[in-house]
């Protein structure tokens, strides 16, 4: 899949934002006043920036509201509805914390649940896609959820919790990769089933339908990604989870937190880039590519 910067940014940033909001909502940290302003601002800001980034991915952002309508079947629609709901429901709690120094735990808890659901919905957008076997697996949502919660915990300065979540994230990523590498074969799709010609012999693309490129190839077939997979996995694992986990176990300090956070963010960007770039869409079979 094409690693679109807008989607990488969206998933990483909004994940982080909603992760932070989860912790703020459940009241693990209950800031008030300026601190609350900064933290809730960060949560709303990151989630919002992520949504704006996602809108860049749309052909018609001006119609974005229509995306709220199909929550019955569509995880993307659910994500939109949940994100909006989370932000709205959380609002009284946030406002209470900032302006009145009175958190409203009911709104907070409900908002946190919705924020968590939003993160899960984001993950399900990918996990539901059978045509991308690497994503179509239960191991996808844990990566998204743990990444969001771990990053959010760092922002919420829940360092020990964050360290454990980072460790969990590391495990989840490793698991996702290990399983992911088997998914394409497990899908049983190959050029033979794609063409129905598999029974006749070895099938190979001779000529693509057009000598030029097309949307499908640009969007769904990205062979460059897999060349860098090992390197990027190490970066993602190292920077995204192991290093922050280790740093967070050190005596706390703004510099260390900032360092841990930037390492985590860099690692997550790498992970997300790879998440798209190394995911094979079965349409590649029609183009002699994986």
């Amino acid at each position, binding site marked *: 899949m094409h690693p679109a910067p807008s989607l990488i940014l969206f998933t990483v940033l909004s994940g982080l934002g909603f992760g932070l909001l989860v912790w703020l909502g459940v009241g693990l940290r209950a800031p008030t006043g300026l601190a609350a302003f900064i933290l809730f601002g960060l949560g709303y800001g990151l989630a919002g920036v992520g949504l704006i980034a996602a809108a860049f991915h749309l052909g018609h952002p001006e119609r974005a509201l229509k995306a709220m*309508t199909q929550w019955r079947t569509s995880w993307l629609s659910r994500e939109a509805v949940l994100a909006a709901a989370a932000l709205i429901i959380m609002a009284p709690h946030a406002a209470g914390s900032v302006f009145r120094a009175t958190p409203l735990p009911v709104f907070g808890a409900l908002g946190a649940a919705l924020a968590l659901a939003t993160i899960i919905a984001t993950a399900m957008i990918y996990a539901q896609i059978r045509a991308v076997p690497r994503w179509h697996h239960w191991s996808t949502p844990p990566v998204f959820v743990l990444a969001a919660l771990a990053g959010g915990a760092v922002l919420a300065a829940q360092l020990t919790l964050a360290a454990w979540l980072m460790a969990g994230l590391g495990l989840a990523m490793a698991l996702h990769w290990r399983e992911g590498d088997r998914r394409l074969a497990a899908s049983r799709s190959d050029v033979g089933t794609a063409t129905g010609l598999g029974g006749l012999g070895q099938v190979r693309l*001779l000529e693509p*339908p*057009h*000598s*030029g490129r097309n949307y499908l190839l640009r969007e769904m077939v990205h062979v460059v990604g897999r060349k860098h997979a090992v390197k990027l996995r190490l970066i993602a694992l190292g920077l995204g989870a192991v290093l922050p986990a280790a740093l967070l176990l050190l005596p706390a300090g703004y510099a260390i937190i900032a360092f841990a956070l930037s390492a985590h963010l860099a690692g997550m960007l790498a992970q997300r880039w790879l998440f798209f770039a190394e995911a094979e869409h079965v349409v590649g079979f029609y183009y002699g590519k994986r």
Partner: protein
Amino acid sequence: MPKPPLAELSPYVSDQIRKTTCYMCACRCGINVHLKGGKVAYIEGNRDHPVNKGVLCAKGSAGIMQHLSPARLRAPLKRVGPRGAGEFQEISWDEALQIATDWLRPLRDTAPEKLAFFTGRDQSQSFTGWWAQSFGTPNWAAHGGFCSVNMAAAGIYTMGGSFWEFGQPDWDRTKLFLLFGVAEDHDSNPIKMGLGKLKARGARVIGINPIRSGYNAIADDWVGITPGTDGLFILSLVHELLKAGRIDLQYLIRYTNAPYLVNAQQGAENGLFLRDEQGRPLVRDRRTGQAVAWDSPGIAPDLAHGVEIGGVTHLPVFRHLADRYLSSDYAPEAVAERCGIAPGRIRAIAAEIARVAFEEEITIDQPWTDFRGVRQEKMVGRPVAMHAMRGISAHSNGFQTARALHLLQILIGSVETPGGFRFKPPYPKPPEAHPRPHAGHTPGQPLDGPHLGYPLGPEHLLINDDGSPRRIDKAFSWEAPLSAHGMMHMVISNAHAGDPYEIDTLFLYMANMAWNSSMNTSAVMQMLTDQNDDGSYRIPRIIYSDAYSSEMVAFADLVLPDTTYLERHDCISLLDRPICEAEALADSIRWPVVAPDRDVRPFQSVLLELGARLKLPGMVKEDGTARFRDYADYITNHERRPGIGPLAGWRGADGTGRGRGSPNPDQIARYIEHGGFWLDHIPEEAQFFKPWNAAYQDWAVSRGIYDSVQPYLFNLYLEPLRKFQLAAEGHGHRQPPDHLRARIRAAMDPLPIWYPTFTDAETDPAQYPLHALTQRPMAHYHSWGSQNAWLRQIHGHTPLYVSGDIWAQHGFVQGDWATLTSAHGQITLPVARMAALNARTVWTWNAIAKRRGAWALDADAPEAVQSALLNHLIHELLPSRGDGLRWANSDPVTGQAAWYDLRVRIEKAPAGQRVSQPAHAAQRSPVPAPARDIAHQVKV
């Protein structure tokens, strides 16, 4: 639950449909052009049309994009920069016509042969030929000489008609179909429709082709033959059929010259037919043992035995034939290695032909009467059909190979019989019924007759007393005696060399001769720009008519911009290359369904105006004014012979004339009313056995196809060839120059032969181990397709396809480039792997590669930077043999360009290759740069 959105199910389609004829290729399908607000909105096939019956190919469906092409020329152009650079000034039509008149008038008055007028994709050959004849130059032809004259000539000489577009398999009845060397062909849609019919019936298709793509991909059986060896393979099939006695003796006796006795007397008559005093060929009557005239009533012609006259035995043609092909030289084992086909497969195919022809015989309950007056109760057919094209034709042994194929068809009795191969009117038409070629020119006078024709002996050659050619292309000379379509591919190099003489003006129409229709393209571009010491050009003047910004445009001094096919009148005439079907006579028109939006004019109308300005006979009235207003006026009112004109339908003042009749002022309107075409069914009893069928012959005369009935026999043994051999043996007053004697003697064998192509014979296989071919992409027409925004996305570059062996041997990986080297040149292009390929063959698509700056494409378009023409590797001459002579890379009989004799060597191009070679300097575009993105929709 929300309701689903409603799709608009009955959108308004168009406010008008205009029915005309497609011209995205020469197949000439009927199209419905949907107009909205006077603009072309959508093009689909015309269901009533005899050619395509509603279907349309990719090119035809993309017609709208050709009509809207940014490469369309916009006004007449006068060259202002050096030739080839593409620097022009737009001028008025008045000025353009004045320039052309000023150049041509002195030529006509003093030396009409100094005008060489050649036309390419044109479908008004009878018109341009008539113009050239009127002008008085012998130097006119269309493109057939580099295209498929081997096919045309072998067919006409052997059986009075050919494959190409002049005949077709009986698609509805054939049970076994053999397709030799065809990627696409002119009968583009009909072949696909025919194959579809065979497939629907589950009939067997055998594809003989070094490459298994396109039609060959759907062939039930694929024979990946080594290029240039089909003749050998076919004669091996003949060998097997003869050996097994699976031939149609009845058919041979009735309809062919198989029983004719061949003169065995030494001397000037040797090898000619034994004739009586009236010149009638003789046959041996089995009942009396006497030699009698072939058409004597009640005889039983013998095929086995001859007659002895004065101690000399004269044997029938069939005996010569049997003796030759029963030889073990043609046994499957003897040919297998050369052809690259296992002996078992050759046997299997021969057996299948025999089985289907003789065990699945079909009959139609339709009585008919033959030319001898004998009534037959049924039409008996052998449902084996064959079709072939340039894979056979474009070799230097192509004429004889095509003859061999016709021999095979005739031996099993499957020509003009149900289930076999059928002619389309105006064919069949034996060589005798065609004209002889003419080159008699006199200043200020028309030529002494039609330019092209079918020589029946050396006496019909167009040579001077010293043996030198009379035509600039050397057609009908000893170098190519039966070059029935001229030799357009030799014109530029001969004109450049001043051999056989110098010309003044080269006038080309619709032929991209500076690029994909030339051999040795880089050198040709050089020849077109070469200057004399005084700075004048070697070829002094070049006038060119094109509709688009092609490569050739850049080399013209004067460009006459044509309309597109939707903007002009055309006539697809019976005098030319009509659209007939085996069942029916048909012709059609194009008419301006939209008006041009540029300062362009239909070329034919321009030619008529030029003719009027030059006061050419036939083009001016007595008072010296133009006879024809425009081409439409010509189509309606011109008469070739009294009562016969360009269009056969709705003739006569009342429009009831079919084929014959006086001009009808309403004729074009009637065509338009009828969907752009006219169709006249052949009567049922005349549908088959046309050369011998009295009803057909009478019908053909009534339609003006013949002036009198013309029954004839098929020429298994081709006597005119023997006449050329006799000359080579020293008989007669016209003899070939010594250096050509042996070649004429060998190549002009009156019975089909096979010999290795000249290139194969002279190539060291160690140096050039591979054959290199091009194929036509179904979705492109020669160089035109690349200006079409839709089609160019399908084929935008030219990968060189190589077999897995070659791939492995050279260590190619995906994305690599290859350098291909022939004895003449080198090209570099991307390489791709293909298994379904003759192991000794590489290939790429024809005519996709473009010169930078042409066709309104970006200079870095893939057509320019990831594509190369094989033409750069093919020379019009063979490599020097060290005998001081340069031999043409053409068939020695017809002069057909041997495109597919190419031998090459392949190497991996150095890593980092990004741009194809040769990379010619860009030409300046005479048209403005197009919009980047397009989304064409006619809004109403």
